[in-house]
C-alpha cells in the first residue's frame, strides 16, 4: 500500500462513477454514480493528508487532519444532495410516471 496505489484506486472509482453518470438513463442510477465519484474524491483527500503534507506539519502537527476535515464536509454535502436529489426524483416520478432521463424532456420544447 502506497500513496500512488491509493490514488489510482480513488481515480478508478471516480472514473467508473463518471461513466455511470454519463451513460445511464435512470435518474437513480445517475445519483448512485455521483455518490461513487464523491467517494473517490474523499479517498484522494484522506490519502493525500495521510502521506503528503506541506511544510505546515513543522509548525502545527494537527494540520495533518485538514484533509479529513474536507472529507467530513464532502460527506455533509453529499448527504444533503442525495436527500434533495431523491426528493426531485419522486416529484418527477409523480408528474411524469417515469424516472428515465431520456423521457424527461418537458423543458426541451
Amino acid at each position, binding site marked *: 500500500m502506497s*500513496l*500512488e*496505489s491509493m*490514488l489510482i*484506486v480513488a*481515480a*478508478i*472509482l*471516480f*472514473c*467508473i462513477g*463518471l*461513466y*455511470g453518470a*454519463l*451513460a*445511464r*438513463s*435512470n435518474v*437513480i*442510477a445517475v*445519483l*448512485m*454514480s455521483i*455518490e*461513487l465519484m464523491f*467517494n473517490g474524491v*474523499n*479517498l484522494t483527500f*484522506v*490519502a493525500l493528508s*495521510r*502521506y*503528503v*503534507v506541506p511544510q505546515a506539519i513543522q509548525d502545527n*502537527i*494537527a494540520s*495533518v*487532519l*485538514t484533509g*479529513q*476535515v474536507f*472529507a*467530513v464536509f464532502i*460527506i455533509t*454535502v*453529499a*448527504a*444533503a*444532495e442525495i*436527500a*434533495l436529489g*431523491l*426528493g426531485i*426524483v*419522486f*416529484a418527477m416520478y409523480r408528474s411524469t410516471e417515469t*424516472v*428515465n432521463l*431520456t423521457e424527461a424532456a418537458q423543458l426541451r420544447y
Partner: protein
Amino acid sequence: MLFQDVVFWVLAIVAIGAALGVVVIRDLFRSALLLALVFIAVAGFFVLMSAEFLAVVQVLIYVGAISILFIFAVMLTSDVRRGNLPNRLQIPAVVLPALLLAAMVVTAVSTDWRLIPDSQQERVGLVQTQSVNVLSDSALEQAGVSSPEEMQEIQQAGIADLLISDFVLPFEVASVLLLAALIGALALARGREGT
C-alpha cells in the same frame, strides 16, 4: 506491512468490482446493494489510512442512511422492472472517463510527491488516531513519544478542534446548508396540492 498490503488489495478488488457492478448491472436493486458494498470497502480504506473517525462517519451516513434512501427510491418507483438502461451516449461516456483515468494515473505515478518522511509517519498516525481515541500518556510513551511538549501537542490535535477553530465558517455554512436541504426536501416531498 505485508498484512496491510493484503488488506489493501482485497479492499481494492472489492471496491472496484462492486463499483463496476453498480454501473453495469441492469437490476437497480442489486446496484443499490453493491453501492453499499463500495461504501463499506471505502470505510475499510479509511481505517487502513488511520482515519477512524471518517470510517465511522462513512458507515453511519453512507451505509446507514444514503444506501437505505437509494433502496427506498428504487422500490418506490415502478420503473425498476425496466432496469438500468444505457442511453445513447455510450461512446463518449467510455472515452471521456478513460482519458481522465489515464491522465490521473500518469499524474499520480509521475509526480514527485513530497511525502512525509518515515521518521514523522509514526507521529502522523498517532495524531490521526488521537482524533478518535484520546491517547493516554502511557500509550504515547509506548509509541515512542517521550517529551511532554510533544505529548501535549499530539493530545490536543483533533478533528473537532479544527472544525471549531480554523474551519468554523465552513462548519456554520454546512449547518445552514443542511437546514436548507431539510426544508427543500420537505417542500418537494409534500407536493403542490397540500399548500
